[in-house]
């Protein structure tokens, strides 16, 4: 390769492009087909089976989806029969939220009084608006997403 350093781009291109085609040996195709026939005897290639539907995941989820509205309906019917229970539940939520708000207020003791007041009002307001349910729904959504990803 004495002339290696004199090779021009065009010559390099020509050498790489002008590769002579090589004919496979006469027995090549027969040899491949022998191997294919052996393979076919063991594992015939089939149309890929469609991905099976994940019934084991779908059915429990579907059951839960159906059961939940039923449960809510039953609770609603019972609740209408005893409205005081609902009031009590709401009171529990409000009380719980108030306790949280008070603790939050303790933590913010160093803040100016007007900010403390604003924080307390915000927490009370959130509790009355059903923030607990929103939080519950978010946690439930997060858990279901985690579960579905894991499955």
């Amino acid at each position: 390769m004495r002339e290696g350093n004199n090779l021009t781009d065009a010559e390099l291109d020509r050498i790489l492009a002008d590769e002579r085609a090589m004919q496979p040996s006469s027995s090549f195709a027969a040899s491949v087909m022998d191997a294919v026939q052996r393979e076919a005897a063991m594992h015939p290639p089939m149309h890929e089976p469609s991905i099976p539907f994940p019934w084991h995941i779908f059915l429990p989820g579907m059951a839960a989806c159906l059961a939940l509205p039923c449960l809510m309906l039953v609770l609603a019917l019972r609740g209408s029969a005893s409205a005081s229970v609902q009031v009590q539940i709401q009171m529990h939520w409000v009380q719980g939220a108030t306790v949280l708000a008070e603790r939050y207020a303790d933590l913010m003791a160093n803040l100016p009084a007007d900010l403390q007041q604003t924080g307390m009002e915000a927490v009370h307001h959130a509790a009355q608006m059903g923030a607990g349910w929103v939080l519950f729904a978010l946690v439930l959504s997060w858990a279901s997403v985690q579960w579905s990803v894991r499955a």
Partner: protein
Amino acid sequence: MSASEDQDDVERVLAGDAAAFAGIVHRWQGPLVNLAYRFCRDRGRAEEMAQEAFLRAYRRLAQWRGDAAFSTWLFALALNVYRTELRKLPAGVLGLEEIAELHDARADGKALQARLEQGERERTVQRAVLALPQKYREALLLFYFQQKDVAAAAHVLRLPEGTVKARLARGRELLRRKLQDWAEREVHYIKEERCAKETI
């Protein structure tokens, strides 16, 4: 080579007619063996690698969904097989001693000498391509194998065309450097040989 012939043969094979695969082998044996040969420069090994590629194609025939040309799918699959095979046993690269032997074997006739020099030059370039890092080697080999069609090479390599172009440019640059380096080392080697002979 007709795409519909490939499609028909694939359908027949998938329906259970393994003999229909012979049509695919018949149409694609040349390209697959030639591609393998460019990667290993050994005829026997090229046929072994191509046979392995055909077998894998047979096993995975159902994975070809017709969204790409059959040839693109087949070459991409073959390229994976060749990579695996070459990892097991890399292709031999001509050593400096072998290059020197080719010089010694040169005949005296000028025409024959010119032909030998030309052949030797081609062989050395081909060997230098094999000595390139894998990503540049594959880009160069597939680009020229696909008649300088960057898009076709990019499809087989499953890379963007821009990446293939960049690899081609870098590959050629590395190739030139390698050839220059070999040439300088060979001149040095021959000089040393002559000195040793004169001393004797």
